[in-house]
């Protein structure tokens, strides 16, 4: 029997940071991940991690305000205050764990500028910041002898008497299904990029954690807030870091103009991501794009600078597009990148289900509101990953393991077997692609009542079809076909929550820009949208709203 005080689902930055904290707190911690920790998608974060370090003249309130303004005033200000206050300490701690941050001449950590902020407060490692931090947290997991279930896939959360008390999980290598008992569970399973197509996200970003929470009855919040990153590669949708613009790159249209001048005269290319993506899409829609793209131009930075500060971007340009960034601008376009929405938690990571916590991209604290600033996501993972583990540590002190009925495991085995046994259905990938294309059309950079209604209709059809998909692989060992089928079920739940959340918000705010209602409406919509599973209602969804927590910054119109 596997048992833990704290079981963490996901081994990216939030999961590993939570795990390290749990072990330091003397807890019996388990980490379960469908991929080896160093394969986690935190790897893909390129540009850096924000922190207002007071010892070099920065101010946490300034960072908090930039974050809140970036969020189009939808972020909860108490949560943002915590993140900004704890940021410096968190980054210093990462450095002491061994992260090799870039330095200034004085040997202290150096910074670069990022979008939506006037001050350079983004700490970085070339253009591989996420990877460099992930590998160091993995090093720490070895140091602390962390118990990791590598390549195990969680199929279900176990809830007894309203409390989360463990999971059922599949050991992918053997195909065996197990119950893991846990006094508390922290979901740190990352985003849901694969619900859209194209996306910068890895193939593994299928919203498993969001769906597990949803199925367990936890509420998800502001799911319509989908971030389209301004610079993703034409074709593949691979990410080109904001660090490029942070270091001075230009955005050009087909006339060779720096078009951001029109949309954000002060911040130019470094306005918030929603603003830059909308500007690009407007240029493209009005005929000043190039085959559906605009250009990212780094040439004036010079080869030496590009290679030392943005080496990974040069690698991507050359390997994937055959473009040398020192010689030629590279075609890019807005692409789905991040979900600001997520499992609703308080500032300690607690969800609406006892014993269930969430942190990182799958959670919504909410510090990103309607639009996340670049380099705030890494910060979110380490600050709130740690807090979730600390709170869970206190929670489990008065909790005993629950005796779980054997029928849980038997029923889950039957459910999985029925998927394996199903014949002559559609392939999971075909249905996934259709779903993802519908989502991009319906919940895109620009959206309106009509596109969103169509998306609801499409996803409703997809949800019926998913019940009949069938897979080729029948064997137990490394049955990725079965994993795809399970992931697809998860993704359709996430998609369902997104479309219902989106159609509920009758205003434009941050990333949720409606062409039929183009203005922000603080009077009626300065509030969060909560969506949860409801077996009583016709569409299976309950929609509620919650006021935004405003501490000291009154909403004003955003200008960049």
């Amino acid at each position, binding site marked *: 029997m596997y048992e833990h005080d704290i079981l963490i689902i996901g081994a990216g930055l939030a999961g590993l940071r939570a795990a390290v904290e749990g072990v330091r707190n003397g807890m019996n911690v388990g980490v379960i991940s469908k991929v080896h920790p160093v394969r986690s998608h935190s790897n893909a974060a390129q540009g850096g991690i924000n922190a207002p370090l007071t010892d070099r003249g920065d101010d946490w309130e300034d960072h908090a305000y930039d974050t809140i303004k970036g969020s189009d005033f939808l972020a909860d200000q108490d949560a943002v205050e915590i993140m900004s206050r704890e940021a410096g300490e968190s980054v210093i701690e990462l450095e002491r764990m061994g992260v090799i941050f870039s330095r200034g001449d004085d040997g*202290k950590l150096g910074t670069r500028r990022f979008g939506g902020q006037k001050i350079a407060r983004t700490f970085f490692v070339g253009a591989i910041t996420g990877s460099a931090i992930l590998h160091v947290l993995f090093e720490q997991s070895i140091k602390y002898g962390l118990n990791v279930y590598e390549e195990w896939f969680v199929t279900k959360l176990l809830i007894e008497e309203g409390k989360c008390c463990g999971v059922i999980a599949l050991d992918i290598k053997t195909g065996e299904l197990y119950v893991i008992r846990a006094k508390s569970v922290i979901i740190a399973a990352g985003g849901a990029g694969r619900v859209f197509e194209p996306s910068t996200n890895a*193939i593994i970003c299928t919203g498993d954690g969001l769906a597990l929470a949803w199925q367990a009855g936890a509420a998800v919040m502001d799911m319509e807030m989908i971030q389209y990153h301004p610079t993703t590669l034409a074709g593949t949708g691979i990410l080109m870091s904001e660090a490029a613009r942070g270091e001075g790159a230009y955005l050009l249209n087909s006339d060779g103009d720096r078009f951001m001048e029109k949309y954000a005269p002060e911040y130019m290319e470094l306005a918030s991501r929603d603003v830059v993506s909308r500007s690009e899409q407007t240029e493209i829609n009005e005929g000043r794009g190039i085959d559906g793209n605009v250009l990212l131009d780094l040439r004036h930075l010079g080869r030496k600078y590009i290679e030392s500060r943005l080496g990974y971007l040069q690698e991507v340009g050359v390997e994937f597009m055959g473009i040398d960034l020192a010689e030629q601008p590279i075609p890019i376009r807005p692409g789905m990148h991040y979900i600001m929405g997520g499992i609703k938690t308080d500032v300690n990571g607690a969800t609406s289900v006892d014993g269930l916590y969430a942190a990182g991209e799958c959670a919504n604290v909410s510090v990103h509101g309607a639009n996340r600033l670049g380099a705030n996501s890494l910060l979110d993972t380490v600050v709130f990953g740690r807090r979730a583990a600390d709170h869970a540590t206190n929670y489990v002190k008065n909790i005993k393991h629950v005796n779980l009925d054997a029928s849980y495991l038997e029923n889950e085995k039957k459910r999985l077997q029925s998927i394996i046994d199903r014949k002559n259905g559609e392939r999971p990938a075909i249905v996934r692609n259709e779903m993802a294309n519908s989502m991009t059309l319906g919940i895109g950079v620009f959206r309106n009542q009509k596109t969103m209604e169509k998306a609801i209709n499409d996803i409703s059809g997809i949800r019926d079809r998913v019940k009949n998909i069938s897979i080729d692989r029948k064997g137990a060992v490394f049955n990725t076909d079965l994993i795809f089928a399970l992931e697809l079920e998860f993704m359709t739940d996430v998609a369902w929550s997104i479309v219902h959340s989106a159609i509920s918000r009758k205003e434009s705010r941050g990333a949720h820009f409606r062409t039929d209602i183009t203005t922000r409406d603080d009077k009626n919509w300065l509030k969060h949208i909560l969506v949860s599973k409801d077996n009583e209602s016709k569409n299976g969804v309950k929609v509620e709203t919650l006021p935004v927590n405003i501490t000291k910054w009154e909403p004003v119109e955003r200008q960049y």
Partner: protein
Amino acid sequence: MEVKLNIKRFDPELPSDNEWWQEYSIQINSNTTILDALIKIRDEIDGTLALRCACRASICGSCGMRVNGRARLVCKTRVESILKNNEPLNIEPLGNHSIIRDLVVSLDSFFSKIDQVTPYIVPDSEPETGEFIASNESMENLLTSMNCIMCGVCVSDCTVLEVDNKFIGPAALAKAWRFVEDPRDGKKEERLRYLNDQDGGIWDCTRCMQCVEVCPKGVAPMDRIMEMRESAIESGNKSTSGYKHTESFYNSVKKHGRLDETRLAVDSAGITNIPRLLDLAPIGMKALLKGKLPPLIPHKAEDKEKIKDIYKKVEEKKQ
């Protein structure tokens, strides 16, 4: 255009004939990567095909495989870039790893070797407040190794691991280098001593360059291993036959302008190491009978003064 991929399959659950090659034909364009092609096969033709992949952007390290006999990260290899006369591409799992199914290998041995090098910083003391102070150059220097994504490509094609699985291997040694070089680490000497003395340590690399060739991230593990050899020697680790071999080689060329092979064998073993020298005797006898024994008194190079000049220049440069 249409291309053929010939994929090595393995299914441990089949009672017999559980290994086979299977050919698939698919349509590609000029930007299609091998990973795109494999995903297309898995998604549209044969869902039983097992492979690992995640980021598609050469940062997660999941998709190391052998293509036409050479290990690569398939996400950053465009099909067209290695296609010859439209012959099928042969895709196999990584070498030097045990296979779980199809293109999926076990990484247990890979990560156990990472564990072996104490892969985390162990500072002597921490600053009272704030970060460690270190020069940017010293940090940027570490980037070479931090670029490692643990994809296993170097391990796959390492010629030492092929015959000696005790070798710590290129990836784990590159990881070890990252801590040896980190100015914040307090255990440099202990680390070097371990890597020097350990069976399978830094002296077991044969300098074949394979890992440098195949590494998709420019880590150049062999160069890192050579740097650690130098550091180990500078720290006074001179007991290994590896060091003695190097020293003998160096002295012999300096003195004679060319290699004294007899002396090299004796020096490497250690002149007082009688058992090891006795081991060499039969090899010497065999060489003698075949007329291959090196001369006992070495030949001398003609322009050996010029070689001495080279030595002088190198030694000056080092100081």
